[in-house]
């Protein structure tokens, strides 16, 4: 006869720990995306201030140079604009497609940037990007303070929950 009990306990422990580690990985992914977004916004600002690159071409360039979910975002944005969609509409579709893991306040700021993108003059457009850059920098600073503690907490919580369940079931 096979004793299923130890196997069940091991599974409970693994599942619970996996949930904790997954939550910690999400925090790390948010950090990576924020840092990548900071680079992308800086490139966007430079392209506009030096070459007045239109948003369609800019998105296509960023889709090439960016990483992770932001590549998907800029690629979808460039695709939408190429098909003649308005910037706001193309950005909404791109947000839905990319499933970015950014903090809510940064997402709000990013949405705000794309709502009016291209409808401002040169100075106004740069100001809009700078405002979003400020928000992203604040997001990075806030996450940097909490990242290690949060990741450790999630991992420990998962592990401890699993152990508790094992003890209760045993």
């Amino acid at each position, binding site marked *: 006869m096979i004793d299923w009990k130890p196997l069940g306990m091991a599974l409970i422990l693994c599942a619970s720990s996996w949930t904790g580690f997954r939550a910690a990985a999400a925090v790390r992914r948010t950090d990576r995306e924020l840092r990548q977004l900071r680079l992308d916004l800086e490139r966007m600002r430079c392209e*506009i201030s030096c070459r*007045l*690159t*239109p*948003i*369609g*071409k800019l998105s296509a360039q960023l889709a090439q140079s960016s990483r992770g979910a932001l590549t998907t975002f800029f690629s979808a944005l460039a695709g939408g*604009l190429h098909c*003649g969609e*308005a*910037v706001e509409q193309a950005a909404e579709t791109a947000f839905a497609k990319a499933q970015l893991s950014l903090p809510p306040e940064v997402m709000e700021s990013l949405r705000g940037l794309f709502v009016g*993108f*291209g*409808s*401002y*003059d*040169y100075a*106004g*457009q*740069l100001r809009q990007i700078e405002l979003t850059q400020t928000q992203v920098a604040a997001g990075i600073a806030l996450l940097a303070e909490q990242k290690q503690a949060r990741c450790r907490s999630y991992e420990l919580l998962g592990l401890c929950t699993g152990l508790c369940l094992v003890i209760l079931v045993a």
Partner: protein
Amino acid sequence: MGMEECVSQAIRVLPERVQTLVAAQCARKAVRIEELRLRTGCPVSLFAGGREWGLSDADGPCVADGAMLRQVVARATEHSLYAAGEQLRNGYCTLPGGHRLGICGSAVMDDGQIRTLTAFSSLNLRVARQLRGCADALFRALWQRPLSMLLIGPPGCGKTTMLRDLIRQLSDRSRFRVGVVDERGELAACLDGVPQFSVGACTDVLTSSSKEAGIYLLLRSMRPDWIALDEISALEDVEALCRASYAGVRFLATAHAQGRADLDKRPVYRALLETGVFSLLAVLSPDRQLTIEGL
């Protein structure tokens, strides 16, 4: 590029319904479209062969509204007003292919200067075209006497088209090095550095630069035999032409005027004639008759 291709390229910025109507008009009446006008609250109209008429279909007249005008400007500027800031300040936007969208609306003023245009009220889409051979008479005149030439005529009579063909002929047939200061992007209509119109194998094109800065840049960098510019309109352009003429380069330029008498009335053109830079004056009449005289 054929006329049909030119028109279909130009109307890409228009809403789909207008595009369909224009294409139908082209097919049915075989007209050579020169302009399309969109005015808020009025039917979209088409100008060809000296006549303007409104577009309509089974649903009635195709009336333009504010949203339609905003959409057209957004498409024309590639959804990037910041990239077309300087052009918008001057009331136009150049499209791929050298077509020009004239824009009218409310001007936002800043320190006495137009900062941008908003609340668009009318748009005028001018279809650019290339007529090979239209400048044969001018080319022959320059072949006999290769001197700087000023081409004048009223708006819409085809000065730019003729200048473009003259540049091509000087470049291809006489193998002169021609520098083009294409301030508005209408002469060569460069797209990613490639001229959309044929301007000749020995032609160097500088796009989007002011005429003043462009003349000096071409002189320094490309050593041209001729420098061509479209629509001289400011005293700075005249000063730059005058100074550059000492370097031995010859000029081809256009200006808005009905004739010699009209030139003398305007301070900028009077100053231009006084410099003695131009030796030949070509006058293009509204019915496209050309006369060439010495200055």
